[in-house]
């Protein structure tokens, strides 16, 4: 129980940091923000690797392969699509014809 309490403390403090940091993101970047946070929650891949890496009953193996795959899609796809979007945001139009 004490262990859980320590982890909840981390969780709640991180929520406050999250609110603080995210509230500074301008509306124009809200879509990239969503795809970036999509990539960040792909960190669940760490959890997927841990469960997939353990020696496993067959049912668990199937679940973990799918978990690893979904989380990898999240990480790779999320960062790639955010990068693609962000490179389009330009402060000024380059040379006008």
């Amino acid at each position, binding site marked *: 129980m004490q262990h859980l309490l320590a982890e909840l403390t*981390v969780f709640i403090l991180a929520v406050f940091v999250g609110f603080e940091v995210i509230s500074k993101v301008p*509306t124009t970047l809200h879509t990239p923000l969503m795809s970036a946070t999509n*990539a960040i929650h792909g*960190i669940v891949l760490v959890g997927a690797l841990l469960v997939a890496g353990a020696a496993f009953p067959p049912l*668990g*193996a199937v679940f973990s392969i799918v978990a690893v795959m979904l989380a990898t899609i999240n990480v790779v796809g999320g960062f790639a699509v955010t990068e693609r979007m962000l490179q389009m945001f330009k402060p000024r139009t380059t040379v006008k014809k």
Partner: protein
Amino acid sequence: MTQAVTSVWLDLAYLITGILFILGLRYLSSPATARMGNRIAAVGMLIGLLATLLGSGIVSWWIVALGVVLGTLVGLFSALRVKMTAMPQMVALFNGAGGGAAALVSTADFLFVMENGGTARGIALSYDQGVTIVLSAIIGSVSFAGSIIAFLKLQEVMTGRPITYVGQQVVNAVIALSAVALAAFIVTLHGSPEPLWPFFTMLAAALALGVLFVLPIGGADMPVIISLLNSFTGLAVALTGLALSNNVLIISGALVGASGTLLTILMGRAMNRSLANVLFGAFGAVSATSPAAGSGAAQNVRSATVDDVATMLAYAGQVIVVPGYGMAVAQAQHSVKRLADELEKRGVTVKYAIHPVAGRMPGHMNVLLAEANVPYPALYDMDDINPEFPQTDVALVIGANDVTNPAARNVASSPIYGMPILDVDKASNVVVLKRSMRSGFAGINNPLYEMPNCQLLFGDAKASVDDLVAAVKAA
């Protein structure tokens, strides 16, 4: 978890990952530094993943390799191929993937505990671990199934209109309660071995709940729902972290949960509607049921010709473009940019007014216009641009409707009463590009169209704008 990894190095790596995620998000506070932010976060991710691969004693490498290779291929392919107009669907899918992964990790963890009769910490399924596992499995499943339905609606595989039936909320409540009851049952058993059926029934209930709670959500409310699902996935990941005693999952999940929650609040505020109203109001269903609000009511409007509008634009001092979902549907963003270029060549000031809920997700219009090379300083938020309409010669509304409806200001009986709108009616002239006289998503008439300073230009948004470009050139 099995290995109960206590390696200091691993925890240190996770700490760095957490810090880099926070810094990365911090850099997203300006478009100028945002790319850097994304890369910082990606480096953080890489560090966390490498540390896990090297430091946690993985034994079944083939499972890991298979999943990573498949996931990378699918992720890269879809990220590089997706069209900017389809970004809301993409975000919904990725979000579902995260929720699904969190639920599966918890399920696998649960199976492992059952199989081995206890965790490495030497206990059976303890109360706190049990609670976090079932909660993460439930919320992750709701997020997964809900995101899939949101995707299907946005992709227009199924109707974007709310799907409602008698007793909908009762059914949802019963399913939600049974999921919670099963969860409580699983946690209180907490000895091993225990039967697996309650867990899988609980998962099925959570998946059904995810499907059912998004069904009655209409397309115009998607910005709220996508944000909400995003926060669900964040929460599910954080709970998975609690179950696995993994700080980096807890921190990252908390950050994403906070982000999704904040966006949900912002979107709700931009529509002057509470979350409960969005979830249970079935907004947009009115037009199907009540004839009074229907689209059939004749409106007395003036329709304009391309040449009239082109002349008006060409000799204007300032033009404000108001884009909406219709611009995205017609893929008109590049044409809009060409029109703006032509006008600017003639010395006309062109600005863009972005309503927070224009489109189908937060920031949707901004991304489309960025794709068309519109510089971001030309895009204005609602509060910044509203005072400018009275000094504006032409407000050019492209595929937006409800967000310009003056009824929101003064008709207390209107379903959108109280929603903050763009004050386009205050401009000297308003030109609305519309496909037809069909009403907006809310299914209500827009009195703007009957105002003396308003004209309508009918036709596909892209075709109309292309015609305008040609006509302005000739003017």
